[in-house]
């Protein structure tokens, strides 16, 4: 009877063997992921465990590398657009915007007034869907099954609305160089107003059910400390930075589009822990609602074009040069850098994904932590894997 497992089967792979080189002899090397309910897709984290305590962690990625940047170099400017909706399926419109913004900057395209406001509205609605998705999935990681159902209920309303102009539920390819592909209709505006009113009533319920719950608070408070020092060292952005007390929000600090017209707060927390990041996101949802409300009011009449006249065709050539454009996505700073050699195919497209920097903090933040807490920290970073792997 062999009770020693076949070494062929338990030899691990390249990564784990490398990881195990520095391991203590009495520890357990554990793969968390790629198929694991709490890594949201296919992140793989190698853990060195002493009992339940994590001595070391090392994220391994590339399990969802989709060659986005390479693809950018093979497709015409406009043809690359659809892929922007797939880099980060949580908040695709921010990537839409970042890419469009970069190309518009490169080619000097003016965006009509109405399109700008439409962009803000849809972008913020998309942020809401992104945060709701995160919220539900995060609480699911923490072991409560019901909140995600409520979150998706709200999310479905948003998706129904966003589907009207975009014809899609998730992987939007809505923005165009010089505007957006389809105008908003009356129903959308009405529906959005109704939704905001409804959502305002739902937020206190979320707070009652989850935010105030003592079990949850005890679980996420004081774990996964990512302070300002770490934030700056790793270049983390978005709610992770704001949870560390850094009021860095591109919508305010480097306003893009017409964000400077709206009055909203940049929520920050100084606790630096998972709860801080959680609260920042919850607060951001309220602020998004405010922005949408204001934008709906400012929406120029239907006569305004939603796409600039003579907007470039997908195969159009772009002037040589380079441009960088960054927007504030649901996870942080989404940046696109494009280089053109004057042909109809980009010379280089570089994507700056916020998730990558945020995830980098994880290895340091989770040292010495319980396995269960590590899951809570991982969730609080709000990772979307394709964006990290690109």
């Amino acid at each position, binding site marked *: 009877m062999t009770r020693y497992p076949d070494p062929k089967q338990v030899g691990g792979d390249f990564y784990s063997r490398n990881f195990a080189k520095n391991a203590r002899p009495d520890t357990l090397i554990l793969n968390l992921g790629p198929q694991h309910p709490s890594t949201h897709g296919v992140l793989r984290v190698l853990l060195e465990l002493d009992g339940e305590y994590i001595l070391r962690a090392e994220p391994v990625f590339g399990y969802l590398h989709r060659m986005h940047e390479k693809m950018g170099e093979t*497709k*015409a400017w*406009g*043809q*690359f*657009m*659809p*892929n922007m*909706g*797939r880099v980060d399926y949580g908040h695709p419109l921010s990537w839409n915007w970042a890419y469009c913004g970069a190309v518009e900057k490169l080619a000097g395209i003016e965006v009509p007034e109405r399109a700008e406001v439409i962009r803000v509205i849809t972008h913020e609605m998309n942020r809401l869907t992104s945060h709701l998705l995160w919220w539900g999935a995060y609480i699911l990681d923490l072991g409560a099954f*019901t909140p995600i159902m*409520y979150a998706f*209920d709200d999310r479905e309303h948003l998706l*129904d609305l966003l*589907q*009207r102009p975009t*014809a*899609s*539920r998730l*992987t939007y*390819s809505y923005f165009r160089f010089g505007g957006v*592909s389809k105008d908003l209709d009356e*129903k959308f505006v009405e529906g959005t107003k109704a939704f905001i009113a409804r959502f305002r009533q739902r937020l206190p*319920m979320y707070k*009652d*059910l*989850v935010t*105030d*719950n*003592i*079990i949850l*608070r005890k679980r996420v408070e004081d774990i996964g400390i990512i302070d300002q020092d770490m934030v700056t060292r790793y270049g983390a952005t978005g709610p992770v930075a704001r949870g560390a007390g850094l009021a860095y929000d591109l919508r305010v600090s480097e306003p893009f589009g017409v964000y400077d017209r709206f009055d909203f707060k940049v929520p920050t927390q100084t606790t630096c822990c998972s709860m801080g990041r959680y609260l920042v996101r919850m607060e951001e949802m309220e602020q998004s609602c405010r922005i949408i409300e204001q934008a709906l009011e400012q929406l120029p009449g239907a006569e305004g074009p939603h796409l600039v006249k003579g907007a470039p*065709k*997908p*195969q159009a050539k772009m002037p040589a040069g380079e441009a960088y454009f960054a927007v504030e996505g649901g996870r942080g700073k989404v940046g696109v850098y494009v280089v053109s050699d004057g042909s109809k195919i980009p010379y280089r497209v570089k994507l700056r994904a916020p998730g990558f920097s945020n995830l980098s903090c994880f290895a340091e933040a989770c040292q010495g932590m319980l396995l269960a807490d590590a899951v809570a920290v991982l969730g609080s970073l709000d990772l979307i894997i394709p964006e990290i792997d690109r």
Partner: protein
Amino acid sequence: MSAVKDIFQSVKDLWSLFVGLRVTGKYFMQPTLTVHYPRETVDEDVEQTYGGHVELVPKPKNPLKPKCIGCMMCVTNCPSGCLTVVKAKAPKPTPEEEQAMKEAEARGEKVKKPKAPKEPAKFMYDYSLCSLCGTCIENCPVGSLRYSNNIYFVGTSRKEFKLDLLQRLQRQAENTAKAAPEASEPEQAAETAKSEA
């Protein structure tokens, strides 16, 4: 003092558990939100705004023929290369015509060669590569493409997703004709097709 505070805090913390129970209890009583899919479908409104795979728009006069003029704009612009359009060739002249043409040539007259009709002979579409981006739809000069409403599409083999859009158009037209046999006027048929789609 701090002990009192602690106790007070603990009570408050415990209370939060009851608040949670109240929330879920309340929702337990409320009706469900589910759309019982195969028996009922989501609002028409939602269903119609969702883009299924791409399909051809028939000519208003002739529901059997697409509006398409075979300009290939959609093919060149599609990022995923899922469209294949073969332009219609000029109809092969019949022997008599050929004869006539030859004669005419011999006569030194300007030959009136039959022109290729502006329509596709074949319009193939590989749905399994499509990203539903809408580029083809936007760039079609005559508006011959649109999102279909075939949104509940599944298959048991990869081949099923290589669609012949022309055939599909014809099938649709037939279906419409069957559905509305009294509407023999082509315009009317086209209209019904449009509204149903």
